[in-house]
């Protein structure tokens, strides 16, 4: 068991005041038998009204808008949580039984979304590479661990070579990235192997200096182990998720779990600072480099004052609308 105080701060600064800002937050720690949320407060500059919803995957989503001109938006989330150690899977059933169970899940609605791998051109190339990684006939848990270790050992943890939109094929070729890329890779490999896997966004708490991803929001994978349930695997830190991780959202991919997402209307660029600060009693040096880029984009509307000179994209999008 461990207690953590988490401070997650997101700050947007705009070169010129912006308006009509709509935002979606998925920064609410997921309480369950492994996580007790003792307190959680979200404060936002300009004090907008935040409506809370529960989405399809059971995540809490906060939605708010700020329409008046503003040059800065700061979202602060402070949580006090208690994590509990997990029970490791007993993994007693034999391999065949387990694999059959997984095959049966293909028609189970609760698992369908987590079994389908993305469509990649390089699928065969990847399958071949996995030939020497996976122990043939091994139980699902073992193969999952092999895949997680494979990603950790063969991909280099490096910031700045990828971004939110880097496709899987590029990550595969680059063999480098940050926790989001490691997670996407492992997600794909697990699903390719027939294992249900889901994306998790959250925080990883600093146990020692070698833990990666503590300064920002973190991402990892949960794989479904037959007759046990969902088990978290962190390929960035090559470990099984235990009481050192705090979950915020789960889903099929990053888009389902984006911690902070928003649109606004304005002319200037924005700068973004994200910091996550986690204490378990001793204050730690803060590290302000964001690992997982927080998703904000400019609402693609025409920039004042040139108003109705339509951009080609506008025209094209309108053309694309299906009128049945």
């Amino acid at each position, binding site marked *: 068991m461990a207690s953590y105080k988490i401070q997650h701060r997101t700050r947007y600064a705009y070169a010129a*005041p*912006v*308006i*009509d800002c709509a935002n979606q937050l998925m920064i609410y720690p997921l309480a369950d038998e492994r996580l007790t949320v003792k307190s959680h407060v979200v404060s936002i500059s300009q004090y907008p009204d935040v409506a809370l919803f529960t989405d399809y995957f059971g995540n809490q989503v906060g939605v708010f808008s700020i*329409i*008046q*001109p503003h040059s800065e938006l700061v979202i602060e989330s402070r949580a006090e949580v208690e994590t509990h150690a997990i029970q490791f899977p007993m993994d007693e059933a034999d391999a065949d039984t387990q694999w059959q169970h997984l095959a049966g899940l293909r028609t189970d609605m609760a698992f369908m979304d987590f079994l389908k791998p993305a469509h990649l051109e390089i699928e065969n190339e990847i399958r071949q590479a996995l030939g020497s990684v996976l122990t043939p006939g091994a139980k699902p848990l073992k193969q999952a661990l092999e895949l997680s270790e494979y990603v950790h050992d063969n991909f280099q943890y490096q910031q700045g070579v990828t971004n939110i939109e880097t496709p899987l094929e590029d990550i595969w070729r680059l063999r480098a990235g940050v926790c989001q890329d490691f997670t996407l890779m492992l997600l794909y490999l697990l699903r390719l192997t027939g294992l249900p896997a889901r994306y998790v966004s959250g925080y990883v708490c600093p146990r020692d200096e070698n833990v990666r991803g503590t300064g920002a929001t973190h991402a990892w994978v949960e794989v479904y182990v037959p007759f046990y349930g969902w088990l978290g695997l962190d390929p960035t830190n090559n470990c099984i998720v235990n009481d050192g991780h705090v979950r915020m959202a789960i889903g099929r991919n990053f888009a389902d779990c984006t911690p902070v997402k928003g649109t606004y*209307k304005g002319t200037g660029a924005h700068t973004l600072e994200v910091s996550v600060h986690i204490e378990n009693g001793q204050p730690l040096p803060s590290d302000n480099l964001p690992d997982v880029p927080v998703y904000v984009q400019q609402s693609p509307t025409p920039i*004042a*004052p040139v*108003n*109705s*000179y*339509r951009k080609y994209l506008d025209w094209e999008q309108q053309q694309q609308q299906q009128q049945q």
Partner: protein
Amino acid sequence: MLSRVADTIYWLARYMERTQSMLQVIRIQYIASQDEPHYWGWQPLLHTYGDLSEKEIKQRAPHTPQVLYHLVFDRQNGASVYHNIVRGRENARAVQDHITKEVWQSLNDYYHLIRQDSVAHQTLGEDPVSGLDGLIQQGVLYVGTVQNTMPRDEGYIFLKLGKFLERALQVTDMLRLNQHLFGEESEHGGAPELRYLLYSLLGYELYLKTYQGQLEARSVLELTLYNADFPHSLLYSLGQLLRYCERLKDKSRPESYEQLRFLIGKARTTVAYSTLESQQGEALGKFLAQVRGELLEVAAALSSSYFGNG
């Protein structure tokens, strides 16, 4: 009325007024370049309405057809007459449901006219004045069509606001460009540029009727700034802005209306209560800069309070 529609109509008017103003200036400058023994050159216009580097300006300025091409027909020049007409037409197309068919037609015709090879050919070749006149005429046709066919609704108000704001800005800028004509030294007046300035504003005949005798800088300034009967004078434009703004009173949020009325009133007061005597040398420059600033404040207020741009 939807903010976007009002915004679009307002800009339609601004582009069309700008087009007319530019064409008239270019036409007069061309005549000057032919008539005046010591023609002062195309550089000022190329600076104001062009999109060229200093080097390019130097290269092209001596070649009139090249200048005319760049200012009127050059599709690569975002400030050219061509582009203003294109934008005007685009705006009209976007709000076709809010203007009359005839107005849309006149703009569509204008667009097709400037794209005609024969027009460019004539303007850049044998008869630039007639070529430009043909374009100017189409612009006058647009104005007449608006007057004749548009219902006097909220859209009409924004058309007028756009038109007169643009006109006021154009006059202010023109005077700033020609500030040197009104300096203390030029009391003895008669500089040929003054005549062309009047022609550009369609004010030469009125000048002659009002001030018999030789062209004097002070009188030209007086006409251009203050003459309430002169449709291109600064005071006239501001008066029209105020008049149309007042029509918005029961169509707006009170605070939006109050602010707009205040800002237009302020600009108008700046001009109405200034005196000719004080417009000497540097003071004129400062005065014009102030007026310009106040006009832009009016534009900003329209943009944020009426057109939904925060």
